[in-house]
């Protein structure tokens, strides 16, 4: 069967610069879920194991770790990792809710995405203030 030329057969500009597109909030939560997971694997996991080992090894190690965590740059890193953990957790709970068909419509999906994003940031800020 001969097909008539359709509009999509014509050469057209393909413009997919992700930074030039305003991403909807579920997309933001989704990419941050992925980025936070990568960060937790690459940095959080080895750092956590090292911290656990050092803190259990000796009273000096425990105290030294406490001193290490008072350095402003280290604190900044710990807050980032804490946020990564919490955001990943809340975005994951949102995934399970989606599996249960909760919040699948556009309004619901945007609402749960906003809740996950805000909860992660607020809880990180609360724990950060409490710790220091």
């Amino acid at each position: 069967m001969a097909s008539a030329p359709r509009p999509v057969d014509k050469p057209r500009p393909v413009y997919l610069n992700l930074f030039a597109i305003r991403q909807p909030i579920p997309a933001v939560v989704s990419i941050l879920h992925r980025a936070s997971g990568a960060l937790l694997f690459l940095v959080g996991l080895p750092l956590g194991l090292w911290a656990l080992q050092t803190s259990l090894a000796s009273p000096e190690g425990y105290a030294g770790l406490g001193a290490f965590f008072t350095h402003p740059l280290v604190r900044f890193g710990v807050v980032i990792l804490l946020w990564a953990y919490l955001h990943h957790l809340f975005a994951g709970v949102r995934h399970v809710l989606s599996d249960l068909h909760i919040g699948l419509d556009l309004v619901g999906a945007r609402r749960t995405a906003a809740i996950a994003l805000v909860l992660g940031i607020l809880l990180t800020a609360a724990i950060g203030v409490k710790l220091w």
Partner: protein
Amino acid sequence: MVGPRLTTNAHYGLRDWLSQRVTAVVITLYTLLCVAIAFVAAPNGGLGYDGWRALFASNAFRVVTFLFLVAVYYHAWVGVRNILMDYVKPTGIRFVLQTLVICALVAYTGWGVQILWGMR
């Protein structure tokens, strides 16, 4: 439609989807346990070194922590492999990276056992 099967792809099934959620539940429960311990210890000014040691001297807590770590490793494997499948297209490079991730996670497993059961 499922395309040609690559050795470095996932297993096209329910298993990864389900294991990612089961491990997530284990991780969440352990997190809540640690939050509860922190809340109980907080009025006494936290655990301190002695309390921290005593917590990990308990064999039950060691086993629970080890279960948490294994859940984290399996969860990380499924997630990191998804990332590699999305962004690393050449099969050879993807295979090497996936092998490195597995090596790291197996090494972390040994490290975790050493930390939990090797403490003096």
